[in-house]
């Protein structure tokens, strides 16, 4: 059995509130299943199970704010159970033997030789920024006598739209106090807005203050710890733009591409060639990631931004990538995304869109080691096939960690992205 812990969803998170238990005790869970939702500075985030097993019991009540690393639930792990049987002649781990919850996952990656063998066939899990879990308080041992009994009394969960929940979190409003009035009614964003306006006049903090605090913490840490170096390169996007227009010509709006999808793919493919841009700098060393999860900096209405990831971006076809990006942006702006999306980014892409300025130099999101910026494309005089002609040009920038890579590799990386965008059929 293992404890399912409150994960750290970023370098800046210390605690969060459990707001939804989405699995009943006794139900089977699989790796990747969404089993809970927690409210953080960044909004409501869905938390996924790390392993297969049976959820035995919830250890934290709804609405409780607990520190990162706290055991939220006991999960009886099939693998672990079998491993115990095989590995030991000691006391038979017969069912019913109380056992202290063993936080086991995610373990910090073991120290590896200086030169990690690239041919290592075992995929390294992307390391999450989770402090080594401490053993939960012995008081919360899994009590066998409670195994079959109903869980502690729970208040009916208030029904609330995601947008309303997000607004409530931003405004620091306790949803339970609203839901109590009429448990049947769904709480809307307008309800929360009305309450927020009311309490705002009483001197509550501005909405999005917490988001600002979270960004401040992460970016301060980045500038304090990471020796950034910066490069830029002008990329000819004329072909990419023509490719998108041609593709979209006979498509209904919902199937249309945006240049942004091409950017994601181009970055992911370039990372394959320059793996030192992809991974985490932790414990005084670089840990490259096998997975290529491109974090997208997505701005939120009303200020702030988050950078959840498109997982395994280089394996996704362009059309599916576009759907994934559209889906992610929608969910982020509605205030609902998954824990793995928030923690698993291995490199970040930030694009200014089509109406801003020429260049942006990003600040690396720790513990990542690189961030690619794409400025607003504009028509500029350009030498193309020996003639000066107007071409659609965008400035690509790279901020990378000098502890991990040097300018020469960074330049190669940026050129790879520009080359892919010049040959959009290759994406």
């Amino acid at each position, binding site marked *: 059995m293992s404890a399912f812990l409150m994960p750290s969803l970023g370098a800046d998170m210390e605690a969060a509130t459990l707001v939804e238990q989405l699995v009943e005790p006794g139900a089977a869970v699989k790796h990747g299943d969404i089993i809970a939702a927690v409210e953080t500075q960044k909004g409501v985030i869905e938390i996924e199970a790390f392993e297969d097993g049976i959820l035995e019991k919830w250890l934290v009540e709804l609405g409780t704010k607990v520190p990162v690393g706290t055991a939220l639930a006991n999960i009886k792990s099939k693998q672990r159970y079998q491993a115990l049987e095989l590995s030991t002649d000691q006391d038979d781990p017969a069912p019913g033997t109380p056992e202290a919850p063993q936080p086991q996952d995610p373990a910090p990656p073991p120290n590896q030789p200086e030169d990690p063998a690239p041919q290592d066939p075992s995929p390294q899990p992307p390391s999450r920024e989770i402090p080594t879990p401490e053993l939960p308080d012995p008081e919360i041992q899994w009590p066998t006598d409670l195994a079959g009994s109903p869980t502690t009394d729970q208040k009916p969960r208030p029904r609330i739209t995601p947008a309303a929940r997000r607004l409530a979190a931003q405004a620091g409003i306790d949803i339970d106090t609203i839901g109590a009035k009429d448990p049947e009614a769904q709480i809307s*964003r307008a309800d929360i807005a009305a309450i927020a306006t009311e309490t705002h006049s009483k001197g509550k903090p501005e909405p999005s203050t917490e988001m600002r605090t979270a960004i401040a913490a992460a970016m301060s840490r980045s500038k304090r710890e990471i020796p950034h170096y910066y490069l830029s390169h002008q990329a000819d996007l004329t072909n990419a733009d023509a490719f998108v227009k041609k593709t979209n010509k006979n498509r209904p709006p*919902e199937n249309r591409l945006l240049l942004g999808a091409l950017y994601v793919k181009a970055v992911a493919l370039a990372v394959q060639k320059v793996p030192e841009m992809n991974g985490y700098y932790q414990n005084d060393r670089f840990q490259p990631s096998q997975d290529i999860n491109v974090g997208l900096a997505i*701005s939120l*209405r009303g200020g702030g931004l988050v950078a959840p990831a498109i997982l395994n971006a280089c394996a996704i076809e362009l059309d599916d990538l576009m759907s994934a990006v559209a889906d992610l*942006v929608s969910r982020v702006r509605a205030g609902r995304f998954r824990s793995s999306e928030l923690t698993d980014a291995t490199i970040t892409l930030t694009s200014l869109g089509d109406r801003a300025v020429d260049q942006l130099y990003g600040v690396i999101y720790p513990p990542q080691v690189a961030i690619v910026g794409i400025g607003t494309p504009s028509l500029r005089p350009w030498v193309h096939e020996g003639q000066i002609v107007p071409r659609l040009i965008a400035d690509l920038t790279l901020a990378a960690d000098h502890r991990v890579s040097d300018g020469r590799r960074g330049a190669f990386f940026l050129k790879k992205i520009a080359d892919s965008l010049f040959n959009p059929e290759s994406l």
Partner: protein
Amino acid sequence: MTEQDLSKALTEELHRIAPDVSPDDIDPTEDLRDECDIDSMDFLKLVTALGKRFNLEMPEADYPKMRSFESLVHYLRAKIA
């Protein structure tokens, strides 16, 4: 469908995307994306929603005709008629 109906429909769809923008604050002759602070992804969602609502193709080549609130309403009216 009258211009008023179309304005109402467009206001509704805009509210889904930019719930913090009051319809009264939108200058109908100014650039709609600037007025509502919406990016290309949001605009694509708006076009998708309007296309479904009125069963229109809304081709990308017509985007320049959808620049402002007013021009978008005129565009819809011409296409639906």
